[in-house]
C-alpha cells in the first residue's frame, strides 16, 4: 500500500512561515470530525518552524526546519493514550481521536518532538493530521505543502520498501533519531541544522589583497585529511558538516610565496576564524 510521508529539504526553506499560517487557516474554528476539532486562535503550533543561525558576523548562515506531527511508526503518544484515543491508520497517519482523548492531558507530554498541544477550552490534545480530511477528499497534498513557495516541503506516497529505498538513495535523515520513534517525516540537508562549520578569510599581509584560490586542508587528530577546499576571490573558505563537540581539527594553509600557516581548533559551535593574514616568505617558491 502506498502511504503518505513528508520530505522536507532544509536547504530549500527560507522560513516564510506560509506553512505555519496555512495550517492555522485550515484548522482555526474548523472542526473536521472524526480527525480533529478546531484549533484555538493562538498558541498552537501544529506546524512549527525551528530556526538555526550558525556562525559569527560576518560568516553566518540561517536555516529552518519544519517540525510538525511526525506520524511516528513507533509513536509514544499511542502508547500513552488510554482507550485507544490515539491510533495509527493503515496509511501511517497518527490520529488523536478528539472524543476519546478528552481530558487526557498526559498525551501532550508523551511526544518528544513537542508536537502535541493542549486545547484548554475543549480539553483535548491536538496535533497535525497531515490534513487527513483533505487527503480523503482527494487533495494531493496537505495545506502546508500547497502553501510552500520553494518546494521545501513535499508529500510523497510510497510503499514501505519504496520509502526505505528513497531514504538511502536521497540521503534522507530523521530529526533527533535518538528518540527512536520512527517518524514518517524525513529531511534532506539536515546537516545545515544539526552540524557546524569552520569559516574564515585569508589575506596577504604585504599587499593587503584577498588570498584567492589558496589551498586549505582540514585534518583530524591523527593527521587524516577530513576536507580540502580553496579560497574564493574574497579569500573566503568554509568547512561545513562538522559534528558538535568534535575535534580537535588542524587547519593547514599553503600558498606559494607565503609562509605556511596552521592552527588547531575544536568545534563546539560554528566558528568564524576571522581574517588570517599570511606573511610573505622571501625566496619561497611554489
Amino acid at each position, binding site marked *: 500500500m502506498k502511504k503518505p510521508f513528508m520530505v522536507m529539504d532544509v536547504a530549500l526553506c527560507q522560513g516564510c512561515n*506560509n506553512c505555519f499560517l496555512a495550517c*492555522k487557516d485550515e484548522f482555526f474554528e474548523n472542526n473536521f470530525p472524526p480527525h480533529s476539532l478546531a484549533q484555538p486562535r493562538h498558541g498552537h503550533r501544529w506546524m512549527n518552524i525551528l530556526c538555526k543561525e550558525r556562525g*559569527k*558576523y*560576518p560568516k553566518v548562515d540561517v536555516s529552518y526546519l519544519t517540525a510538525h506531527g511526525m506520524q511516528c511508526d513507533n509513536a509514544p503518544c499511542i502508547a500513552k493514550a488510554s482507550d485507544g484515543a490515539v491510533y495509527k491508520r493503515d496509511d501511517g497517519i497518527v490520529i488523536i481521536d478528539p472524543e476519546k482523548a478528552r481530558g487526557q492531558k498526559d498525551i501532550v507530554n508523551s511526544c518528544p518532538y513537542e508536537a502535541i498541544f493542549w486545547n484548554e477550552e475543549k480539553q483535548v490534545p491536538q496535533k497535525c493530521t497531515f490534513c487527513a480530511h483533505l487527503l480523503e477528499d482527494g487533495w494531493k497534498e496537505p495545506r502546508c505543502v500547497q*502553501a510552500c*513557495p520553494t518546494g521545501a516541503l513535499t508529500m510523497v506516497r510510497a510503499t514501505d520498501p519504496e520509502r526505505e529505498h528513497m531514504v538511502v538513495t536521497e540521503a534522507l535523515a530523521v530529526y533527533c533519531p535518538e528518540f527512536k520513534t520512527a517518524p514518517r517525516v524525513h529531511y534532506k540537508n539536515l546537516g545545515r541544522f544539526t552540524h557546524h562549520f569552520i569559516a574564515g578569510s585569508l589575506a596577504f599581509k604585504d599587499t593587503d589583497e584577498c588570498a584567492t584560490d589558496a589551498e586549505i586542508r582540514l585534518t583530524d587528530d591523527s593527521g587524516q585529511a577530513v576536507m580540502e577546499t580553496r579560497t574564493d576571490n574574497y579569500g573566503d573558505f568554509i568547512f561545513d558538516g562538522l559534528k558538535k563537540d568534535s575535534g580537535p581539527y588542524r587547519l593547514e594553509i599553503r600558498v606559494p610565496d607565503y609562509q605556511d600557516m596552521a592552527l588547531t581548533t575544536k568545534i563546539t559551535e560554528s566558528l568564524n576564524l576571522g581574517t588570517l593574514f599570511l606573511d610573505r616568505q622571501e625566496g619561497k617558491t611554489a
Partner: protein
Amino acid sequence: MGKIEKLTSGTTGGPVFVYVEDGRIIRITPMELDDTDAPSWEIKARGKTFSPPRKTTLSPYSFAWRSMIYSPKRLLTPLKRVDFDPDGKRNCTKRGESGYEPISWDQATDIVTAEIKRIKREYGSSAILSTPSSHHLWGNVGYRLSTYLRFMNLIGYTYADHNPDSWEGWFWGGLHHWGFSHRLGIPEQYDLLEDALQNTEMIVFWSADPEATNGVYAAFESTCRRKWLKDLGVKMVFIDPFFNHTAAHIGGKWFAPRPDTGNAMALAIAHTWIAENTYDHEYVATRTTGFDKFADYVMGKEDGIAKTPDWAEKECTIPAREIRALAREWAGKKTMLASGGMGGMGSACRSATGNEWARLMICLMAMQGIGKPGINIWGTTQGAPANTDFLFPGYTEGGISGDVDNSAAGFRFVYKMHDRPTRSFVNQPMGQHIPRLKIPECILDGKLEWRGKGFAGSAMEAQFHKYKYPADGYPEIQMYYRYGGSFIGTMGETNRYVNAYRTDRLSFVVNQSIWNEGEVGFADIILPACTNFERWDISEFANCSGYISDSYTQVNHRVISLQKKCIEPLGESKSDYDIFAELSKKLGFYDVFTEGGKTDLDWTRQLFDATDLPKHISWEDFCKKGYFVVPIDKDRKSTPALRWFAEDRHRDTPDWGPHPECQEEFGKGLQTTSGLIEFECSSLNRFDPDDPERPPIPKYIHSWEGHHTKDLYDKYPLQLISPHPRFSFHTMGDGKGSWVNEIEDHRILKPDGHYYWIIRLNSRDAEKRGILDQDLVEVFNDRGRVICAARVTERVPPGTVHSYESSAEYNPLGKPGESADRGGCINLLTPSRYITKNSCGMAPNSCLVQIEKSAKGAN
C-alpha cells in the same frame, strides 16, 4: 455542514480561492491553475528550458486573512467618543484616552455630515483634511484611488499627499540622471529575466531583499527564478547591513556596510574601475555625459580626497581589499545590480544619504554599460514574459473615480470606463494640499513650506515646485477625515501624529477603518468598514500600473480575479462604497456619487466591460470560473529593458513614458535634456548647482544622523535600520489578532500575554548591555521610547540594529504621545527630517538609538 462553495478573491499578496460554508469563510488558498487556463511561458537559456509552476504563490499575510476578517479588533458598529458632544463640549485634547460608545449608522452619518456641512459653511471644503492609508485592501473598485477619491472629490478636501515612500532616493536623486519620472526614477524592467538567464554571470543585491518584500504585491512568484539563476552558477553578492532573507535563502557573499555609508563603498568601486581601467569606455563616451567631472571627484582631483577603497573602509567598515575584490569581479562579469527589490527602491533610499545612493547605483551601472546583454539594474522580481498588450488596469488607474489628476486614470482607462469622471479642484497643484509627512506641523503650527506635490512624476521638474500651507486665501484645516490607522506605525517621529490629534485646533475627527488599531482610537466618530471579502470587486495579481507600470511582469501568470462578495459584512460594518453612499445621501449628491444608484457589483461589471476581458471571456463565464489567465502570444518578441538605449535605437519596450514633450525626438533616448545618462545632472544644474545637499554630480555626503554626528552618536551609539517588514504588508497583517503575530521572527510572546515587536542586535552589543535573546528591552532616543523583544543575532554587525517598520499596534504605557510604547511603533524613534531641504522625502533609516534592558514587563 452545509454546501462548501469555492469562490475567488484577490489580496495584496496574491489572488485566492475562498471556501465558504454557511455564510462563513472556512479556508483561503493560493490558486492552482487548470488545463483550461492559458499555457505558461517558457524561456530557453544555456541549453535549458525554464517554465514556472502552474499555480500562484501567496504572501504570508494573505494566509492570515481569516484571522483578520474574524478579528477581535474588528469594528462592528459605528462608535462615538464618550466625551465628544458636537453640540457641547468636544474635549478634543482627550483624544486617545476616552472610551467609545456604540451609535447607530443614522446617528453616525448625521454627525459626520453635519460636521462636513458646518465646516463647508464656516470655512469652505478645503478646511477638511483627508488622507487614506496605502495598500489597505485589494481591488480596482474599492481601492483608495477609486471609491475613496470618488467620494472625496465630491465633498472637496485638502489632501495629505503620500510621499513616494518606497522610492525616495530614486525620485529625489536618481531621477535626475536619466529621467524615468513616469516610474519615479526607477528604470523599466522588461524581459530582464530572459536576459539574466541567458547572459548574466553575477547579481549584486544592494539593499534588496525580494524574499522579504516580494517585489510588490507579487508573493513568491520570483523565488523559483532566483533558484534557476543560482543553479546556473550565477554568483550572488549581498550588500545590506542586515543578513537579509534573500541572502539567507540563496547564499552568497555578504557585505554589511555601516548604515548610511554604502555610498563610500560605491565610490570606491568606481575608483577601482577608473584606476584599473575596467569600465566601459565606449559606452561612457557615447551613451553618457559628464563623466569627466564625476571621475575627477572620484579620483580626488576636485576635493583632494581620492575615493579609494582604503578611504571607504574608514567610512563603511568593509575591508579595502574586499571592496577591490568586489570591484574586480563586477567589472569582469556580466552583472545585474538589484539595487532595491524592484530594481530601484530598497531601504538605503529612505535615508539621509538615500539620494546619493540611488544616484551612485545608476552611475556605477552606466560605467559598466547598462542595457547591454546581461548587464542592467534589475531587482530580479519583474521582467518575466507577459502579454503587455492585454488591457486590464492596475489599481492606480483610478477605478470608479476616473480622477485624472490624482491617479493614473488619464493614461488610458478613464476613456474606456467613464462618461462622467470625478475631479477635485482643491486637490490640485493650484489648490490646497499638504504632505503626509508633515500633517502634524500643518495642524499644530498652521504653516509649512515644501517642494513637490506627492508622487510628482509628471515631469522631472515637478518635484522642484514650491508650495505652502495654507495656500494663499485658503483656510486652515479644521476637520480630519482619516481613512485607516497606520501612520503611528509607518511615518517618522510619530509621537507627532499622536499629539496632532490631541488639540483643539482640530474640531472634528472621523476615522473610517476595519479594525480598531493604531490611530483609529483618536477619532471622535469611528465608521466601521468591511474587508474586500465582504463586497464585490475585480483585480489583477500585482497589477499597480501608473508609477509601477506593467508591474504584473512580476508574476508568472497574469491572473485576473473576480473578487466575489464571499460573506455579508460582519456586524453592522459596511463596504467603503456603501458608507460613502450613505453619507452622499445626506450631502445631496447620492445620485452623482452612485451614478444613479449603481452598486459595487454594477461598478465591477462596468470595469470588466472596459477591459480586454470581454474579448476573451463572457461576464457569465468569468463569474462562473472566478478568474482568467491572460494568454501570451506564442510569437511574442522579447524587448529587454534599455537594450534599445545601449544600442542607440528607438525604444521598443512597452513603457508608458517619457512623454513626447520632454524628448528631442520621441522614442529616442532618455528623458534628460541630453537624452543620455547624465553623470552631471543638467536638471540639478538648472535648479540649483550650488545645493550642497544635492550637488549636480553624486558625492559622498555625511549623514545628518550617523556616526559623524558626534554628540548624538556618543549619546545614541546604535544605528537603527527599519526596512519594510517581511511578514506583514506595512500594518496589514500585523496586530488585530492576526496569526502573523505568532511568527517567531515577527513578534515574540512574553508571559504578560503581549506579542512584542522585535529588535535585532549583535551579540557583542547585547553582551555589553546584559541583554539575552528574547529579553524585553527599551529602544530610545530623544524622540521616544519603544519596548521591544531583543533578538540577539549575528545577522547585523556590532553597532547596527535592525527592526521592521509598521507596527499596527500603538499601545502607550502612559499618556499617549509622551510615553513608552509596547505596541512596537519603531517609527516613534525615526526622524521626521526630510532627506534634504529640497528633497521632501522620508529618511527613517538614518536613526541613532540606545538600547537598555527593560525594567518593565515580563523578563
